[in-house]
């Protein structure tokens, strides 16, 4: 129908902004309709960056501190009652917080914002209604009680999942990850993403770890780019197509969990049919 198609053409599905980190994050959110579209006054927000490796931003294994900080600042400006930046690392928590630079950056914004959660008592088991392989999992209580979930993954390769982006990053909000490896990583990532679907995905491609991910060390390229979408699958798909992985280019459908998520209607990987707006700031 005509009106619908017109509307769809004006709406930005994927915002791609290159330039200064803080400006690029703000611009990308603006292009999707502004932060107020996602965060209302009084909301509780959880931001999920990658901060589970005790290495600095130059290694591109963690989200850039400025990306996390800018998103948190946006949420506060929108009047969020509580903004938390959470992850559940495998490496020692304190050192991840420190080395990633995220703790220091966000603490300057508001004290007590950034936390690692790993105690079993801080999780609650929930059913995954649309899960096919993973039917239930334990999720951080803070995530379950949040109104808004914003994903802020760094773009990186992953020797098991191909890439570690928005959907893979949701594994940082649950307790039992090993079961996912046993049952089939890609299938479980999709099941989990059907439960934990971020309203907003902001992929940090200011640096991309194109080899040796997730922990590195590997080849780091510096596209200085932010990719944002309300569709986590689209954001991941665009990121796969936009950069080299181990020196070659790939189609989004070559990453199994992106392909499965698309097939199950969790989002779209056919970026050629989506409205992509690019800007340089």
């Amino acid at each position, binding site marked *: 129908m005509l009106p619908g198609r017109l509307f769809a053409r004006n709406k930005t599905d994927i915002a791609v902004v290159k330039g200064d980190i803080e400006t690029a994050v703000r611009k990308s959110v603006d292009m999707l309709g502004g932060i107020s579209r996602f965060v209302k006054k009084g909301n509780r927000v959880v931001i999920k960056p990658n901060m589970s490796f005790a290495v600095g931003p130059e290694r591109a294994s963690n989200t850039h501190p400025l990306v996390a900080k800018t998103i948190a600042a946006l949420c506060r400006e929108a009047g969020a009652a509580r903004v938390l930046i959470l992850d559940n690392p495998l490496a020692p928590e304190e050192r991840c917080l420190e080395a990633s630079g995220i703790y220091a950056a966000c603490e300057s914004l508001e004290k007590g914002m950034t936390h690692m959660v790993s105690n079993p008592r801080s999780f609650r088991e929930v059913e995954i209604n649309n899960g096919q392989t993973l039917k239930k999992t334990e999720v951080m209580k803070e995530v379950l009680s949040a109104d808004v979930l914003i994903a802020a993954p760094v773009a990186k390769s992953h020797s*098991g999942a191909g890439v570690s982006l928005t959907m893979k990053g949701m594994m940082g909000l649950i307790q039992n990850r090993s079961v996912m490896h046993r049952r089939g990583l890609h299938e479980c990532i999709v099941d989990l993403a059907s439960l934990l679907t971020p309203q907003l995905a902001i992929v940090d491609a200011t640096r991309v770890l194109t080899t040796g991910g997730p922990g590195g060390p590997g080849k780091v*390229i510096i596209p200085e780019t932010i990719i944002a979408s309300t569709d986590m699958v689209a954001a991941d798909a665009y990121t796969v197509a936009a950069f080299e992985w181990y020196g070659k280019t790939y189609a989004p459908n070559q990453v199994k969990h992106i392909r499965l998520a698309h097939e199950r209607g969790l989002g779209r990987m056919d970026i050629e049919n989506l409205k992509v707006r690019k800007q340089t700031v």
Partner: protein
Amino acid sequence: MGFRRTAQLVCLTAFLVLLAGAGHIQEADLFLRLDPALVGITAIAERKWSWLFLPALIVVFSAFLFGRIFCGYICPMGTSLDLYDEAHGAVAGRFFQRKPGKARHAPQWLSPRLNRHILVFLVGAAIAGVSLVSWMSPLSLITRFYGLIIYPVMEIVASQALVLIYPLVSWLDIRSLMFAELTPPRFTGRFVVLLCFFLIFAAGRITPRFWCRYLCPAGGLLAVAASKPLLRRRVSDACNQCGICAQKCPMGAIENCCPEATDHAACISCRTCESLCPQQAIEFSLQARPDRDAGPETALSKSRRQFLISGAAGLGTAAVSLTGLHAVSGKTVEGRVLGERLIRPPGALPEPSFLASCVRCGECMSACPTNTLQPIWFDAGFLGMFSPAITPRRKYCDPRCTACGEVCPTGAIRTLSAEDRVWARTGTAIIYRQKCLAWEHKKSCMVCDEVCPYDAIAFENKPGLPYPVPHVKENRCAGCGYCEHYCPVTNKAAIVVTPMNALRLSTGTYREAGEIRKYKLSLRPPTVSLEPRTYPGATGMGTKHPEETPDNGSKGRAPGFDAGY
């Protein structure tokens, strides 16, 4: 509250604070190093002197001057026994009818010299190079008791309390409490410790401080030093032989027959007699006054013979222990039968020295932030009981952590610099391919690589296998156990740490020893600087180990990607 009780409580509190802060604060092992039995036996068994032993020498010296004040005022074991005794008395007094005036007397057959016999027994064993002091050292025992039993229980209670108050603190938005995480440590082998303490506390029903009077080898050593101290109990002529002091003396240092005489070797200068004496005939002083002390009632030759027998018994026990299958001696490893998973802490001395030096106090286990250090049973034979070992399945041994060496009172685990710690290899990981998800079950799993802090796992595509599979780069592996801990395979992991190639040095740096052996141990280094900037398509910056960047695979595809549609 008198001076003595205040001093006792201050010392017990200091001991508990140091133990709780083990790994975080300096000199956390100070109280252990005050124990003259622990230090003396270790010095003999290991045949070494260390400045670490100085505090115990000071304690022995103090006994020459002031008697057994260590026992009466400082020792956390003594204080714990006193407090338990009083608490028991108070509770029993409230709930049960007390038998009035029933004094607790030691059985006649028990010799007050028993503690010295135990000491001589331990010395005998130590001369043979075998340290059995962990069975009897008061500070070793009490450190284990609080560190492995009391503290974990307190932590689990506190962590439950945090769960209970969570709704409230979340509503109040108190972030520090909302996210406060306590992970109570868990230990094996605690029932032995509990049984020991049940017996020690229960023996207090026979006489107060039964342990201190008859069993404690540290008390025995101090008794020898305190046979006639400068500051001691003296009784004036005002004494009318009422005998109250003899009845109330917790150490049995005063005989009923002759209250004016003192067995200084037993006296802990608690001054109970001084405060109770109706005639005020007793004082603890330096002044020279003719005193009427209890002389040695046993013929010296007879007692000497008995001590020789005790020493010989110690030597004999050592000899029997050394003929156990698992006993280790000398440097050669050939023919050694030890647990296949016996992984000692980083910086542990070579096994024979380690066993001679380790006093099994459990301080390292209390200090271990990941709770991976656990007491072992018979993995290292009878002589290795209750010594610490890494249990990677519980958690990894953090290559940046040096806590266990810092708190070890005897240097059985060496204190390492941060740099040398990275080189203090504890073992090597091996992969059980028939258990591995990637190798055997053809699943996508790379957890061992993801978590390895040394970058010691290589993932490669193999023909016939859909996903890359792991290999251990032996010369880069330090045996830290991250891989084993996080391996998703249930119960026994598909990648496990074995003690192979562990560095056990008594001198020299681990780095030097590792480099000679061609090890390449380094924590994953940061990549080179971000300049020059590169963009998609451009050839990128080099990586630190370009030769080991996972190969593009047999199909030339990036790991984890597939053919797509």
